[in-house]
């Protein structure tokens, strides 16, 4: 009702304001005068005031929070919830769909209810684990405001008047979907692995390059049928000849046949590349091993977030893609929306499930450091988690109006509140987003340095802002923070104590802590405060007199992944080579719980030659290729030069293992010894 009154009034104010403009000369004697402020507002346009938009959003939220209206049937709820959140992988996730996400009840559920949902049943059989309700406290989150409904349907005219008299949509579409869907957190949502210390077999976990030199499995097929000629890469190049563009080289590389034309009696043979013929067994002493920390992911809630200092973002970002657009193997344990009034009134009876971070809408909160030492802080909004109905993918990139609401009504007011008792700040912090834009004249980004102990005040203020205005800001409730450091290897590789061998070394964690002074490491390492994941990277480099390119044999790698308890994962072939490349895989749940390792990625460092992080397309776009545009020709030339220069350098192989910080740090000091090929193979050569 209220939103109808508001919208109708707004619409009529606009309509009759225009009538006043037209008739004021004629009716001036009978009408009361309009104040200058009202005339100004009319000129600007009533809908252009953010307070009007926010009132509309608030009213819309109130309407949507209605749990049991006769127009909102509750009977269709449970299956929708589960189907929309548990099953298929969105495009923003990788294609590994094996993940059996844990569905458990906070309390044991009556059988009749769980049987209603086939997904719950199947998951429960896999994982009959029940979350310890001792961790669950009713005050952990606002459980009773969760809507029973899970509706992604656009509102009908019964629900909200979407269009004004002029046919223009009053409220942007996004507000129909970006609202509280009913997901909630509990006190240990960030913990998805057991708290107990893992019993880990170090050899298996840290020696992926181990005992499986499956050289024979890399033999090309059809190599003995008489019609084919198996060549090494070196011989292949020799067969093509030294000059580019000749008929012979085209026959070799394009037709895949011998350089000489054959005859009817003696036809030219097809060429088969066998890289094993190029294989060189290196003595152990000629292999260097470097162990580093490549990335960190810290998941925590607002209350426990700490950083010595960081730059707080005060304005929206203009990103094309969400920061976590692919699955990073990190989960958060969420309380699902109530499926009926009983679950609404008894939050302990609701479902909980591990949900991928990459499925939850998020936004950058701030950052610290630059370059390889840059750590981004993201705030995640699980309440708004939903699938896009059109493409079936999880929508995680917040649209601009929602971002503006966050910064205008949460971040900026909280920032002001955090410094309210400190003289000398108020002049520098904009009171609203609009004021900042007005001052700059454009929408340039603005950050603000936040140092301890203001961080804690700021987080409290953010929580307070959301709690005080549930009608407007409930969609931001239950938010949590993720610190994300990527590509730190060049920084951590230099964290090596003096006197250590520069050939084979392992990063010293204490030095890493010093290298990243903005982070509160004690807080991050405390599992009661959050969950810290680290990536340990192990690289193997050749010290051979000639340049060499290291390749992972995929059959060997596969065996290694399997023995480690990894899932099938994704295979990334190196160019079009069938037996060489890399694998990226998550650990199986049971293995994950035993070892606290969550994923592993193995790849060839030759990829670094063309790697361009952050760019979706390599070389150029498909359209450029089809049109043979100048850009495409130029990009090909650039790559050819890269490959030519690369032929004088060596490239190794690399393995990255992601796990909880405690287990990674346990192994870090001795990692070089543990992964040494000599120790593994018991002989003096590396065969991977």
């Amino acid at each position, binding site marked *: 009702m*209220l939103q109808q*009154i508001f919208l*109708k009034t707004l619409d*009529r104010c606009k309509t009759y304001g225009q009538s*006043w403009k037209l008739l004021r000369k004629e009716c001036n004697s*009978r009408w009361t005068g309009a104040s200058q402020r009202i005339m100004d507002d009319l000129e600007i346009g009533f809908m252009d*005031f953010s307070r009007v938009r926010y009132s509309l959003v608030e009213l819309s939220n109130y309407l949507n929070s209605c749990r049991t209206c006769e127009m909102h049937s509750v009977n269709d709820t449970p299956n929708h919830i589960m189907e929309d959140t548990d099953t298929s992988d969105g495009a923003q996730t990788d294609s590994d769909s094996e993940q059996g996400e844990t569905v458990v009840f906070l309390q044991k559920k009556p059988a009749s209810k769980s049987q209603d949902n086939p997904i719950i049943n199947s998951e429960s059989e896999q994982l009959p684990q029940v979350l310890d309700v001792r961790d669950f406290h009713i005050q952990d989150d606002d459980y009773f405001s969760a809507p029973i409904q899970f509706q992604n349907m656009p509102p009908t005219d019964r629900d909200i008047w979407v269009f004004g008299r002029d046919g223009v949509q009053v409220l942007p579409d996004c507000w129909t979907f970006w609202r509280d869907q009913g997901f909630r957190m509990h006190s240990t949502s960030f913990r998805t692995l057991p708290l107990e210390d893992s019993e880990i077999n170090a050899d298996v976990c840290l020696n992926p390059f181990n005992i499986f030199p499956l050289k024979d499995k890399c033999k090309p097929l059809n190599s003995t049928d008489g019609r084919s000629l198996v060549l090494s890469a070196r011989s292949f190049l020799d067969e093509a000849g030294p000059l580019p563009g000749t008929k012979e080289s085209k026959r070799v590389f394009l037709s895949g046949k011998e350089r000489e034309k054959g005859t009817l009696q003696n036809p030219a043979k097809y060429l088969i590349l066998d890289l094993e013929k190029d294989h060189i067994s290196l003595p152990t002493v000629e292999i260097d091993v470097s162990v580093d920390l490549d990335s960190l992911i810290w998941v925590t809630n607002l209350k426990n977030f700490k950083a010595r200092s960081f730059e707080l973002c005060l304005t929206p970002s203009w990103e094309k893609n969400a920061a976590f657009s692919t699955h990073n193997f990190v989960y958060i344990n969420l309380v699902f929306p109530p499926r009926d009034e009983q679950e609404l009134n008894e939050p302990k009876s609701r479902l909980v499930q591990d949900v991928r971070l990459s499925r939850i809408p998020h936004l950058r909160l701030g950052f610290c450091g630059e370059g390889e030492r840059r750590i981004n802080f993201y705030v995640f909004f699980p309440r708004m988690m939903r699938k896009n109905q059109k493409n079936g993918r999880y929508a995680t990139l917040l649209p601009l109006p929602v971002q503006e609401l966050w910064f205008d009504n949460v971040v900026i007011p909280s920032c002001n509140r955090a410094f309210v008792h400190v003289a000398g700040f108020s002049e520098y912090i904009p009171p609203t987003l609009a004021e900042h834009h007005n001052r700059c004249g454009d929408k340039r980004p603005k950050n603000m340095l936040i140092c301890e102990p203001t961080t804690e005040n700021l987080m409290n203020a953010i929580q307070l802002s959301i709690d005080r205005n549930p009608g407007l800001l409930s969609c931001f409730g239950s938010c949590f923070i993720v610190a994300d450091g990527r590509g730190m290897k060049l920084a951590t590789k230099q964290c090596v104590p003096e006197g250590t061998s520069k050939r084979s070394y392992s990063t010293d964690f204490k030095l890493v802590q010093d290298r990243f002074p903005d982070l509160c490491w004690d807080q991050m390492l405390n599992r009661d405060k959050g969950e810290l994941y680290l990536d340990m990277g192990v690289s193997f480099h050749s010290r051979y007199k000639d340049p060499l390119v290291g390749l992972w044999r995929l059959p060997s790698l596969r065996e290694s992944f399997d023995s480690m308890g990894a899932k099938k994962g994704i295979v990334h072939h190196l160019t079009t080579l069938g037996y060489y490349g890399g694998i990226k895989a998550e650990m199986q749940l049971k293995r994950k719980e035993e070892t606290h390792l969550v994923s592993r990625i193995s790849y060839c460092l030759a990829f670094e030659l063309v790697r361009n992080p952050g760019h979706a397309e390599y070389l150029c776009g498909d359209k450029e290729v089809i049109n043979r545009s100048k850009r495409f020709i130029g990009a090909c030339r650039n790559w050819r030069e890269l490959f030519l220069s690369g032929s004088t350098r060596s490239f190794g192989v690399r393995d990255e293992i992601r796990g909880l910080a405690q287990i990674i740090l346990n192994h870090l000091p001795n990692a070089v010894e543990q992964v040494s090929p000599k120790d593994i193979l018991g002989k003096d050569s590396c065969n991977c």
Partner: protein
Amino acid sequence: MTDRVLGDPWFWGRAWERLSEFKTTSLVDLSILDFNLLANWLEHRETLRSASPYCYYIDMRTLENIVKGSSENFLKTNLSLSECSKISKKPVILLLGSCTDYETPILLVLNYDEGKALLLGTHEETQRFDAPKWLHDIWTAVGHFFGWDCSNSSVSTIILRWIPVRIGSPQCNKVKANINLRGGQNLLKKQPRWLIRCLLGSGHGRTMDGGNRSPRIFIVPG
């Protein structure tokens, strides 16, 4: 005609100003309700053309002038009333602010045919009683304004209280359209649905003030 009445900043300007203070947690401002009810009535009146309306709505400013005894012609013009011809007796709907004995706004339905007044929006229990003096004054002034003789008629009053219904509360679905207004159904059932839609439930769920058997009334614009 509607433009000439509602184009007055007294209506849309005040409504716009109050809109910026619009809150879900407080009562809707009277200026907003008055603006919408008048707009509803005038827009409906336009669609009826020459046909007789089911009822009349008198906005708060016009009512104030009527009670003061002002007889300016534009008051009738504002209500699309003929200057000369006799006006047939129809229920009159009014919105009252602070001129009553009650703190809350009142929606008043005056039925001159039956000599009854329905008073919606008090904190008192549903009851019947003789009209107080202020109501008599309004009854008489409005009757005279329309040209109806009502000086000797007694007014039977039915009082119903407002029940604020929290948006999103569990009882929101319990609202039913069946009219179950004890003693008041005859007054309301002939009212046009476009103006007042009385959605009255009987004893479903809880209410904010602890009652559980009170009718709920919503005013719906348009």
